[in-house]
């Protein structure tokens, strides 16, 4: 039998080794620099922006641009433990609306107002200011400075409409009529990504706004929007039922395989269409103003922007970076580097002069059709209620009245 003392001695040796091991992994503190966390798609453009605009030359601060997790749940997992642990992997983060709401309500983001004087906001159009007020301020503090302005666009196949002698629809009714004219075989007039888990809620929000309501109120406008979509799918049959299972990639592919003639999509489709040279032609991916609903012609915009965690290691450097990247004179060059930085700020649109995606943003901005994304303090939970209510009706599991009644109750429970 082995003696207890011998066994304990072995354990002590191993414990001592475990104490020595960490020292080998400890790292020296970094020199003056900041770490900027952006989505993988924005790493290269941000690096280019830092180099071409001369941030390091001006401030002496080096910038390391790193990839942050792309999806909000994973990003939240990473940031929450770090911030609660009193630190942050990034000094500056590029965040979307959903994340911004959660982080700001948790008190994890620094007030950026002191960086800007009143004159700074003269560069911002009214719609962007309203969006910033709703989605980037909390408790009177500015916790995020948007660097882009992503409206939803109405894409259509000009080549197909031309072959039928049709113009892009101006209203919901016209959309149905045009849809009926061009739907044939496996080709549908209208489509969208309507899978649950963000996609369906976005489209219902868009339609409800066009009907004159706020989706989270679940009022008559919400019912009207649901009824309209239901009719397009089940009555007029101009919208594929399969869209209820599709995400944006799938509906984009349907569009590029000539199975869809019109769709609502975010600006990224501009690049997606052009990345498919075998299919792309200018008249296959044109943008028109959104068909007006019963109340108004509107398409809301979302945004991403710069924020600074309260636990940033280099707070001073982070604030300098945000101020630098938000300067009016940098907005045009930034948008030229990549459409990720395209916004409706006057300085940006003037500089871009209708080039690339700026043409369509200018079209929508000038027409005044860009609205503010509806806000609910419960964020994702409220969005889920909207989606489940809509799905219950659109898939014939409930009547409209039943689905909406249940939805209203669930929404009330969130308050």
């Amino acid at each position: 039998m082995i003696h207890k003392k011998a066994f304990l001695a072995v354990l002590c040796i191993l414990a001592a080794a475990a104490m020595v091991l960490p020292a080998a992994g400890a790292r020296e503190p970094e020199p003056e620099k900041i770490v900027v966390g952006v989505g993988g798609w924005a790493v290269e453009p941000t690096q280019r922006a830092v180099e071409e605009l001369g941030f390091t030359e001006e401030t002496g601060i080096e910038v390391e641009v790193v990839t942050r997790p792309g999806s909000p749940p994973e990003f939240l997992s990473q940031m929450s433990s770090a911030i609660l642990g009193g630190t942050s992997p990034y000094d500056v983060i590029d965040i979307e609306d959903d994340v911004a709401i959660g982080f700001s309500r948790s008190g994890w983001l620094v007030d950026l107002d002191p960086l800007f004087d009143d004159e700074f906001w003269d560069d911002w159009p009214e719609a962007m200011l309203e969006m910033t007020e709703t989605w980037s301020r909390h408790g009177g503090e500015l916790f995020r400075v948007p660097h882009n302005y992503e409206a939803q666009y109405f894409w259509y196949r000009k080549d197909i409409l031309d072959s039928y002698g049709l113009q892009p629809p101006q209203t919901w009714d016209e959309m149905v009529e045009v849809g009926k004219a061009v739907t044939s075989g496996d080709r549908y007039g209208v489509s969208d990504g309507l899978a649950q888990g963000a996609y369906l809620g976005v489209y219902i929000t868009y339609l409800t706004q066009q009907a004159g309501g706020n989706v989270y109120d679940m009022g008559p406008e919400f019912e009207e929007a649901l009824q309209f979509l239901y009719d397009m799918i089940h009555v007029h049959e101009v919208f594929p039922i399969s869209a209820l299972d599709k995400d944006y990639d799938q509906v984009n592919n349907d569009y590029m395989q000539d199975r869809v003639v019109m769709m609502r999509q975010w600006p990224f489709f501009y690049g997606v269409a052009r990345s498919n040279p075998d299919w792309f032609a200018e008249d296959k991916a044109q943008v028109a103003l959104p068909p007006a609903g019963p109340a108004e012609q509107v398409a809301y915009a979302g945004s991403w922007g710069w924020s600074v965690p309260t636990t940033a290691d280099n707070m001073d450097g982070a604030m300098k970076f945000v101020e630098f990247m938000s300067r009016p004179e940098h907005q045009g060059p930034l948008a030229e580097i990549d459409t990720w930085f395209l916004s409706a700020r006057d300085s940006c649109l003037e500089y871009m002069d209708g080039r690339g995606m700026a043409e369509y943003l200018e079209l929508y901005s000038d027409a005044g059709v860009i609205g503010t994304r509806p806000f609910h303090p419960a964020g994702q939970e409220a969005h889920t209620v909207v989606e489940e209510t809509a799905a219950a009706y659109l898939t014939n599991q409930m009547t409209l009245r039943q689905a909406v009644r249940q939805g209203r109750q669930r929404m009330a429970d969130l308050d």
Partner: protein
Amino acid sequence: MTAESYRRRNTAVRILLYLSLGIFVFIALIPFYWMFLASLTPRHQLFSIPPNYFPDVTADNFAALIHQIPFIAYLVNSLVFSAASVLLSVILSFLAAYGFARIEVKGSSILLLILVLSMALPPIVTVVPLFQILRTLGLIDTITGITLVMGSVLIPFSVWVLVSFVKRVPVEMEEAATIDGARLFQVLWYIVIPAMVPALATIIIINFINAWNNLLFPLVFSHTEASKTLTVSITEVFQARTPYGRPWGVISALGVTMVVPMIILVLTAQKWIVSGLTRGSIK
């Protein structure tokens, strides 16, 4: 029952068995087939209707993967992290299991029970205190840090499994060796470990797969390519200059690069795993 009818029935049962197995294997392999197919399919053919089972073959998805992430660094980190976690967890678990099995201490069974119950703790609730500990030790964003965490997570299950295997090694063999002058390490090395090779091999494989596939700890405790692993890259790959859409082709390519080493590992150690699992279930 005649021999002929018995033979016929036996053949029918066999056919049914193989048919069932064939269907099961087919269903189990479909996701792998689809992943391999998607990884080799050009992006614009991925969603074609009807599905294209024999698309044009392209390496673009693998090229995009390597372009988008520091693939080699992540791969090396994954290998080092998994191997080190296995080494740490198996050595400590073996010693702990030996202690539980051989040293009679009051309350040791309760201690083992507590250790096993710690497996029920959701890992996510431990990340904040763990973060603070690693930060204090200066181990954030180091392979050492995530290895210590992963190793400690793997230990309870490993101890639980190994205790029963240690108990099955006849204690008389150890006593005989001790009488012959063997020290503790000699007893462990020459008597206990050889008798437990299948069990240890099984634990090594299981722990390696768990560490290799772990996302949470590298996601939370690793911030740069100095310690990020391949699993973290699934949160970083993208389709275009946009947050929208999922890069299914690139994700599939990543899946292939993560699954292939595991398949090779499991096939190589298959004999040991089966032997280890079945031995553990027999008294």
